[in-house]
């Protein structure tokens, strides 16, 4: 048995039962990273010694729990990775940017703290587009990550390092963040499962802010069961994030039992999502996946989301506007390097001009413009109003159906460098994912096939706010009936 093939849930179960040790599991993950990450470049930082120490401690606690017949933490002894825009105490947090080179946060993000409290072991930080701005991980200042299915192609982004690490069996699960599709699109490109929760379901404390009204902490895993496990541990109200919701967190694993039966579940297929420009193999695979849901008893019907065409321009005004404010704090005064200049103002501009990458500067410029006097009404305020119309589209659709099924992205993984000179072409990769962020609704990405180049294709399920339990149940039912999520790339 290769320990790195185990799902998170399998590993946690076998650890509790004493069939495997955390030390051998953690060591197997680190060995695989050591062997393949030179090629993949999924990781920006590793903590092998500390992880092995924690694994030894976990083994002692697991033995004690077994001896005393006490319940062990849900994730006790399980290794996982964290996207480098999320704070982990004592590990560098660069956000894929030179402007945070050398920054080591003195605290854990709430999501990380909860996973650690449940016994999880952080092995390292994964590569990301700079400040999570990108759809390919090519915007990392530390070099791109390669897709495990084809090293000449991108893993998607911005959580491309996490997606590649999970697909390559380096870790059973990794945290990602999703502001416009940054968990779901790389999950699709790498053939793994990705959950973006409802806005407010998981704390953003310790997640370095990009677009604060859109940002969500999520997870990339190999199965829906694992996604449910990680989400269940991280979710819930946090006094350190005033936008977290007070509603109790359901037992997501509880909804993944019994027959994978979807009778009584109405699934809508939005007609606006099957547009010109979508790769025909993607459309075909997603339509077949919807048929699998129908075979499980779901009632499938067409729905309309008439303002879909506006989601992209709305997002690319609102997210950069919020980013231009959030990234004002990087000025070389309190953390990160400083670029020397004669006075304070020139120091700010020199530090930011020199140390931010091209895409970050582009979005800061765009956001600053959209918020500036004379343009605020026409761009930012208009985008916020159209955002309301996009939310209302979903409200109307969810009065007719329980879930929406659609592609995650219009294409499979593209080649490194293919879109780097054309920002707008890159932005179009997010066309099916960013509506969920604008509406604050959850999304689940599921592997649902391969194209003729044997590149993974992903289906997306969306539901109304706080419908994660149903979303996960439908995704679990799909994975009980298919084997796409079990396919592994040959590295």
């Amino acid at each position, binding site marked *: 048995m290769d320990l790195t093939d185990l799902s998170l849930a399998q590993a946690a179960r076998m650890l509790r039962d004493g069939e495997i040790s955390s030390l051998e599991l953690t060591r197997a993950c680190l060995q695989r990273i050591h062997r393949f990450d030179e090629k993949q470049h999924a990781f920006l930082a590793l903590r092998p010694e500390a992880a092995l120490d924690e694994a030894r401690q976990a083994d002692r606690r697991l033995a004690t729990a077994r001896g005393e017949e006490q319940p062990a933490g849900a994730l006790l002894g399980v290794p996982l990775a964290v996207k480098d825009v999320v704070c982990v105490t004592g590990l560098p947090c660069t956000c894929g940017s030179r402007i945070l080179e050398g*920054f*080591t946060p*003195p*605290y854990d993000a709430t999501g990380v703290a909860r996973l650690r409290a449940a016994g999880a072991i952080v092995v390292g930080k994964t590569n990301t587009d700079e400040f999570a701005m990108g759809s390919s991980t090519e915007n990392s200042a530390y070099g791109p990550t390669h897709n495990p299915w084809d090293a000449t192609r991108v893993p998607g982004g911005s959580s491309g390092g996490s997606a590649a690490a999970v697909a390559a069996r380096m870790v059973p699960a990794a945290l990602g963040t999703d502001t416009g599709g940054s968990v779901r699109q790389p999950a699709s490109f790498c053939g793994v499962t990705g959950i973006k929760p409802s*806005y*407010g379901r998981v704390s953003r404390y310790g997640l370095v802010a990009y677009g604060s*009204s859109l940002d969500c902490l999520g997870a990339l895993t190999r199965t829906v069961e694992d996604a449910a496990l990680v989400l269940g541990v991280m979710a819930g109200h946090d*006094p350190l994030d*005033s936008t977290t*919701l007070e509603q109790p967190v359901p037992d997501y694993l509880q909804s993944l039992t019994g027959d994978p039966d979807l009778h009584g579940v109405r699934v809508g297929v939005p007609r606006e999502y099957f547009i010109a420009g979508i790769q025909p193999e993607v459309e075909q695979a997603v339509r077949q996946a919807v048929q699998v849901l129908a075979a499980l008893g779901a009632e499938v019907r067409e729905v309309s989301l008439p303002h879909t*065409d*506006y989601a992209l*321009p*709305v997002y*690319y*005004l609102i997210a950069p506007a919020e980013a*231009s404010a959030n990234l*004002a704090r990087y*000025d*070389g*005064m*309190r*953390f*990160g390097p*400083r670029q020397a*200049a*004669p*006075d*304070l*103002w020139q120091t*700010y*501009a*020199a530090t*930011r*001009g*020199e140390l931010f990458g091209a895409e970050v*500067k*582009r979005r*800061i*410029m*765009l956001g*600053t*413009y959209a918020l500036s006097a004379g343009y605020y009404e026409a*761009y930012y*305020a*208009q*985008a*916020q*109003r*159209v*955002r*309301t*119309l996009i*939310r209302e589209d979903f409200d109307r659709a969810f009065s007719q159906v329980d879930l929406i099924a659609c592609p995650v992205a219009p294409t499979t993984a593209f080649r490194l460098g293919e879109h780097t000179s054309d*920002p*707008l072409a890159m*932005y179009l990769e997010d066309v099916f994912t960013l509506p969920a962020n*604008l*509406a*604050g609704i959850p999304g689940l990405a599921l592997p649902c096939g391969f194209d003729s180049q044997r590149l993974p294709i992903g289906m997306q399920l969306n539901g109304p706010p706080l419908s994660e339990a149903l979303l996960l149940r439908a995704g679990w039912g799909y994975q009980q009936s298919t084997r796409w999520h079990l396919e592994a790339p040959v590295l």
Partner: protein
Amino acid sequence: MALTREEVEHIAHLAHLNLTADEAARYREQLEAVLEYAARLQAVDTSLIPPTTSVLAPHSVTRADEPRASLAPEEVLRQAPDRARGMFRVPPVFE
């Protein structure tokens, strides 16, 4: 949506970003393309539509105003590029 070089320089100034002449020229072109794409939003009648600032229902969040433990000053200052006597040291604002 045509942008002048002066406008690009003005935005860069507002955003505290030093740009090279090459960057300024490239951003002018790319921002024009994105803004032209975004111009389709102007066609939507939103005269009766309220803006979305948050997807959450408006709610007021307060907590008791009590002293609590926080990060130690030296832990925070350790991250700074320059520091002196328990403070961040910055270049002069006035000469």
